[in-house]
């Protein structure tokens, strides 16, 4: 602490080089603690219930978590820019309706898919544009999106389910297996890997972290801040649409009431995965593990025969505990650094 002056904040102005192993140790702990928790939960689950580590159960687990997971991956990018997207559940429902309506109208499958995906992307882009260009809080803009897009989903069929005889080539996407692996699980993994690649290997990904870390500095560094903000909402709309299509495909019917509350599950997973709601920190890998962790817990409760009301309480408590743990480890790491 020997370089501070009038304008400096002493805690950040000085560089105290931490010893190598210590800094490595703490950063490994921060990054790895979710993985450790996950591993512990898996071990406990397999000890408590012999059914847990069966191929069938694991396949089921992946199947269940993949739809929320895909939405959460898109949400991760939005949260990394310090935004939030509350409209994803409604967008997923609308896309699910549209794909079913198109297929009922005998549209070719690729056309129906493109249409549904396109609607999701456009909704995301519109909300991103309104929020970024007019500088309105994303929370409010997407909250408005949540209700009005849900309204649109109902309006498509006046509230009735649709898609009574969807072609088998379509329903196999959501319900089929490749060997023992559910196809939706593979899609979840693929979407995650592609997003990891975007974040790690493109300038767009680099800009996402820059905008989330310090919007003003990013602007003064020539980063196209508005474009980045709009693009992540477009991406979030895309992943929501994919999830919507997959649910319609799996259930072989589309319902306008689908994905109620999915936005909260997605946000919970992103935050549990180590992302900061203030932006600039987080990763798709963390979100991926968190999604699996949440559904393993749910699975474990089911295997143990715990009622769903109690499950809701327990999930909330675990979420808070995980965040407290994260914060604790984080601040210890920061104090050492």
């Amino acid at each position, binding site marked *: *602490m*020997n*370089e*501070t*002056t*009038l*304008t*400096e*904040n002493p805690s*950040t*102005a*000085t*560089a105290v*080089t*931490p010893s190598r192993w210590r*800094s490595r140790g703490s950063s490994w702990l921060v990054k790895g603690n979710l993985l450790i928790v996950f591993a512990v939960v898996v071990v406990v689950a397999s000890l408590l219930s012999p059914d847990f580590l069966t191929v069938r159960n694991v396949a089921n687990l992946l199947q269940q978590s993949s739809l929320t997971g895909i939405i959460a991956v898109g949400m991760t990018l939005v949260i990394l820019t310090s935004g939030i997207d509350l409209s994803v559940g409604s967008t997923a429902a609308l896309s699910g309706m549209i794909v079913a309506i198109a297929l009922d109208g005998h549209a070719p499958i690729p056309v129906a898919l493109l249409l549904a995906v396109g609607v999701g992307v456009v909704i995301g882009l519109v909300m991103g544009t309104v929020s970024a260009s007019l500088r309105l809080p994303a929370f409010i803009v997407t909250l408005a999106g949540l209700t009005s897009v849900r309204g649109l989903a109902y309006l498509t069929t006046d509230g009735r389910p649709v898609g009574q005889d969807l072609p088998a080539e379509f329903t196999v996407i959501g319900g089929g297996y490749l060997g023992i692996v559910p196809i939706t699980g593979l899609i979840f993994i693929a979407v995650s890997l592609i997003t990891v690649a975007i974040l*790690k*290997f*493109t*300038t*767009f*990904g*680099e800009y996402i*972290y*820059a905008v989330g*870390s*310090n919007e*003003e*500095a*990013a*602007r*003064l*560094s*020539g*980063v*196209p801040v508005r474009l980045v903000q709009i693009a992540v909402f477009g991406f979030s709309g895309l992943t929501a649409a994919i999830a919507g299509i997959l649910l319609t495909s799996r259930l072989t019917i589309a319902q306008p009431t689908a994905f109620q509350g999915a936005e909260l599950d997605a946000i919970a997973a992103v935050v549990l995965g180590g992302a900061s709601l203030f932006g*600039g*920190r987080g990763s798709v890998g963390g979100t991926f593990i968190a999604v699996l962790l949440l559904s393993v817990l749910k699975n474990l409760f089911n295997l143990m025969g715990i009622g769903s009301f109690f499950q809701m309480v327990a999930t909330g408590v675990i979420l808070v505990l995980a965040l407290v743990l994260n914060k604790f480890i984080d601040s210890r790491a920061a104090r050492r*650094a």
Partner: protein
Amino acid sequence: MTPSTAESVRTAGSGAVPVLEMRGIRKEFPGTIALDGADLEVHAGQVHCVLGENGAGKSTLMKILSGSYQPDGGEILIDGVPVQIGSPQQGLAAGISVIYQELDLFPDLTVAQNLFLGHAPSRFGMVSRAARRADAVTYLQKVGATFSPDAIVGSLPIADQQLTAIARALTTDARIIVMDEPTATLGEADVDSVCRVIRTLVDEGRAVIYISHRLAEVATVGDRVTVLRDGSTVARHAVADTDAEQWIADMIGDKRKELTEVHGGAVADAEPYLDIERVSIPGLIDVENIQVRAGEIVGIAGLGGAGRTTLLSAVFGARSSRHSIRVAGEPYVARSPRAAIRAGFGLVPESRKTEGLMLGLSVWRNAAISSIGRAPWLAPHSRGKALSVPVIDRLGVKHARGTQAVGELSGGNQQKVVLAKWLIRGSRILLLDEPTRGLDIGAKADLYRQVRLLAEQGAAVLVASSELGELVANTHRIVVLHEGRAIGEFDPRLHSEATITHAIISGKTS
């Protein structure tokens, strides 16, 4: 108020025990001594003006008085009794109220709420709104305000907000009111009304400590003057017996009459690379004719609020302005920072923590962020690393590893990372805004060494600083801004620091 009563108050106050005395105040910050033997003696019923250059220690002295800082030496006496002011709360309790230049009002609350925040008239924990409103009316009348106590503060004009702040100081029954540049953002008519209010305050027997760069105002409203230089009190005057020329001479001192050693050599008489014909933002700046050649470092000097930062951010496109600027002979439009960067500009902003850096991200990421936007848009990490490493090494940035968060570096090394950003980008015009703020002496010298190297390699550099000594030692020419206008240009090899300081303070070049 008649002139005769005012006169009687002024003379009556001077014989008695001073309401406030600060003796031999000393304050050290790591690397600098902000105050070293500052004295201040203020009598009730007087407006006491504190003068000094940028960095003379005025703000530090006031922060010690308010209780925000603790002095390392010296004593404070109120009514002749030594006191310890350990916190701003104790300062308020001792009857000291500070009105900062950036008014610390709550813009979304009403005037009445602002006046009594923290000490609202209440019964059983309930704010009695009627009593508060009635009290607010009384205090507003005292300061001659004509607006309603129910007005939302943020919707009032600046002058009325200033009056609100003064009225709030009265509600705590302050006997010593410190005003830090109260008129800096006011028009002339508003200045007059604020001055009138100040006179009524002292006529009631309060003391006002008045800090302002506008010497004409000091002559109008002040009774006594204390001049600080380099952290010490160097002169005290009665306003009536002296004039502005005397104060300026005291502020400058005689120690820098001779020419300092200057690094900037002559630059070939080439065409200007950056030619600012005019930049104007109504009410803020109207600057004409600043030219920078390739290889040249031009300084921008001026008092706080003279428009240095505004000018640089306007040229960089970070805030909109009307302008006519040429770069290498071609017209340039400062539409946005992106456009500016494409035209070859790079800005090292005033606040590196909030505007210059993404503190949570790594050294490499920060350094390369402006350079990875070109196709192919792939592998920014490895490309950023490849681009950053040689420049970071050349600048001698001390860091544990390239993936270290830039927020963990020291101030000097952080600033070098900001500089590296533009080196990597290959910017040919560098705009530096207070580049050495918060750096120690070694880091400052190091930074300027790098800037000179860049200029030698053909960059055109425009550097704004509140520390004239720095500009004199490191620039080829110095443009002086005064209240938003460029009033003159000086060659540090031909003009002494004293001459330039005179221009900075007085706004006159002769």
